[in-house]
C-alpha cells in the first residue's frame, strides 16, 4: 500500500538540486468523535455570532484583528496578511550540516519521508549515504502552503527524512528552571533506587507497547451498538510514600 505524497519540492544543497516528494511518516490512529445534539442525536455545527446581538455572522464576513497589550485592536486585511506570508517557493534549502544530535529532539515536531519525484532515487540514496558517512544531519528551511517550516534532515532506514521543528518561541527552555533542592540525598536510598532501576532494565522494544485504551474505546462503542451494558467505575488515587526507605526495600524484595 502506498500513501499519497503531501507535497512536492526540490531539496537544494549547495549546487545540488534533488526533486523530492514528502510523505507523512505518522499515521493517525485516534478515535474521532463527533459532537451531537443530545436530544435528537444530530451532529452540531459551529457558527460565528456577534455575542452582543446573538446574530450569526457568515465566516466569509469575519475579519482578523491583532490585539495590543493596551486593549486596542488592529484590523489586518487579507492584503496585510498576504504581505506577511513567506514568498512561494518549491525549494527545501539546506542551511547547515550539523553533527548528528546537535538538534535536540525537543525541537522535533513531525517526521516526513522524502521519496524521489520520479523513478530515479540515486541522488536521494547518495545524499542519505553522504549524511551517514559524515555523521551529520541537515537543517533545512522551506515554504509549504504559505507557511515556513524548519526541519532536521536525517536518515531513517536508509531513507532521507525531514522532521519539522518547533520555533524557538515554542520550546520552554530548561535552563530557566531550577531543579528541586533539599538536604543531601540518603546514600542508601540512592543505591537502592539505582538497584531497582537495574532490576527493571531492559532494551527498548517499541512493539512491546500497545495502545490498549484505543481498543477498549472501540470495544465500548461496539458493546453499546449492540445494546450491551457498560460499567462506570470511579478511579482512585494513590498517596505519596511517606517512608521511602521502606518502600524501596519492599520493592527490591518483591522482584
Amino acid at each position, binding site marked *: *500500500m502506498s*500513501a499519497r505524497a503531501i507535497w512536492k519540492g526540490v531539496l537544494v544543497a549547495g549546487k545540488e538540486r534533488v526533486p523530492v516528494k514528502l*510523505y*507523512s*511518516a*505518522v499515521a493517525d*490512529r*485516534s478515535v474521532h468523535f463527533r459532537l*451531537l*445534539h443530545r436530544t435528537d*442525536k444530530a451532529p*452540531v455545527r*459551529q*457558527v460565528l*455570532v*456577534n455575542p452582543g446581538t446573538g446574530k450569526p455572522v457568515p465566516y466569509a*464576513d*469575519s475579519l*482578523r484583528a491583532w490585539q*495590543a*497589550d493596551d486593549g*486596542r*485592536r*488592529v484590523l*489586518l486585511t487579507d492584503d496585510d496578511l498576504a504581505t506577511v506570508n513567506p514568498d512561494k517557493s518549491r525549494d527545501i534549502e539546506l542551511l*547547515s550540516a550539523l*553533527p548528528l544530535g546537535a538538534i535536540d529532539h525537543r525541537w*522535533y515536531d513531525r517526521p516526513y*519521508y522524502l521519496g524521489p519525484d520520479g523513478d530515479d532515487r540515486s541522488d536521494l*540514496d*547518495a*545524499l542519505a549515504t*553522504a549524511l551517514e558517512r559524515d555523521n551529520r544531519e541537515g*537543517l533545512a528551511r522551506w515554504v509549504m502552503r504559505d507557511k515556513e517550516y*524548519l526541519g532536521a534532515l536525517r536518515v531513517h532506514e536508509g*531513507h532521507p527524512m525531514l522532521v519539522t521543528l518547533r520555533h524557538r*518561541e*515554542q*520550546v520552554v527552555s*530548561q535552563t*530557566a*528552571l531550577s531543579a*528541586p533542592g533539599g538536604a543531601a540525598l540518603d546514600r542508601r536510598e*540512592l543505591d537502592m*533506587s*539505582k538497584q531497582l532501576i537495574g532490576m527493571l*532494565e*531492559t*532494551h527498548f522494544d517499541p*512493539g512491546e507497547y500497545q495502545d*490498549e*485504551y484505543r481498543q477498549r*474505546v472501540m470495544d*465500548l462503542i461496539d458493546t*453499546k451498538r449492540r445494546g450491551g451494558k457498560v*460499567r*462506570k*467505575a470511579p478511579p482512585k488515587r494513590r498517596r505519596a510514600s511517606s517512608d521511602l526507605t521502606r*518502600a524501596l526495600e519492599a*520493592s527490591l524484595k518483591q522482584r
Partner: protein
Amino acid sequence: MAKKKRGGPAGPRPFWSGTLAFGLVSLPVGLFPAHRSKPVSLHMVDAKGTRLARRYVCSKDGKPLEWDQLIRGYPVEKDRFVTVTDKELDALAPEKSQEIDLKRFVPVEELDPMRFERAYFLTPEKGATKAYRLLARAMETTGRAGVATFVMRGKEYLVALLSQGGILRAETLRFEDELRTPADVGLGDPGSPATAAVKRFQSALKPLRAERLDEAALEDRESQRLIKLARRKLKAGEDVLGKKRKRGARKTGSGASSSPPDLLETLKRSLKEGLEPQEPAPGKKSASKKTASKKTARKKTARGKTAGKEAALSEESREALYRRAQARDLPGRSRMSKQELVDALSE
C-alpha cells in the same frame, strides 16, 4: 466576553496530575507542557471590530446549543451514531488514567528521536520532593529512561521519562502503529549509490558544516513580521479599533501575548516547593479526570461561570486547547488562534 481575573495562588494548573509509580514508591506529580503556542494570535471580529464568538447549532433544527445539550458520538453508519459519555470513557482505564507505572527502564540512546511527540515537565506535589530528587538522580547517573503507558484526557500515551539536571521530563512517544515504515508509504529499498555521487553530495555538504545549532534560525519569522506590521499600523492609527484600556494594562512579558505569562513562574515554584495536590473539581473528581473540561462545563449551569472557565482555559497552551478542540471535533480548529480556541471551548 468578560475577562475575569482568576483568584487563588495556583497559576496554571498541571496538564495532568497523577502518580508516578517506581516499584512500590508512589510519587504524586503534575505535568506541565514544555511547549507553548505561537507567539501571536489573531482575533476574529466583524467589520465594526466586535469580537465574534463561536456557538454550536444543531444541524437539524438550527437551534443554538449550550454545553449540557451536547454529547459525543461515534459514527457507525450514515447518520447513525453511538453516543459515549465521559464517565464511560474514564471507566475504561481507571488505573492508567491515574498512574504512570515505571515498569521498564531503557538506555536513553535507544529511543529513536523520530518517536518523540511532546514534552512535559514533571513537578513533585507536596510530600514527593525527596522521592522526585532521588529518582531524578538515580536515572541521570545510570543514563536510563523510564518507559510506561498511561491515559491522559481520553487517550493512551507511550511515554519516556527522562532526567536532566535534576528535572524530570515526560515525553510522549509515538506507538509503533502510529509510525509508518518507508514501505508503508510505498518507498522502494534504497540502493547502493555510486561512490562519485556520494562524494558529490559530501562536497556539497562541506561548506554548510556548522558545529552547533544556531537557535536564531528557529525564530518564527512569520509571527515576527505580523507583530511588526500590526504595531506599525497601530502607531500610524491605521485600522485601529477600540479604546486604550485605562488601568492595569496587562503586561505580557517579551510580547508573547498568547503564552501563559506565569507558566514559567509556576513551574519554578512548583519544582522548588512541590505543588499542593490539585483539589478535585466540583464533585468528587480527580484532576486528571477533567477530560476536555466537558463534565465541569456540564456542572456549571450558571451562566456566570463561563468567565471563570474561559480564564482557566486561557492558562493552557494552544496545544492543550487544540487537543480539547480535537476531542470535541471543533471545525476549523487547526486555523484557530489560541484565543479563538479559548472562545470556542468556553461556550
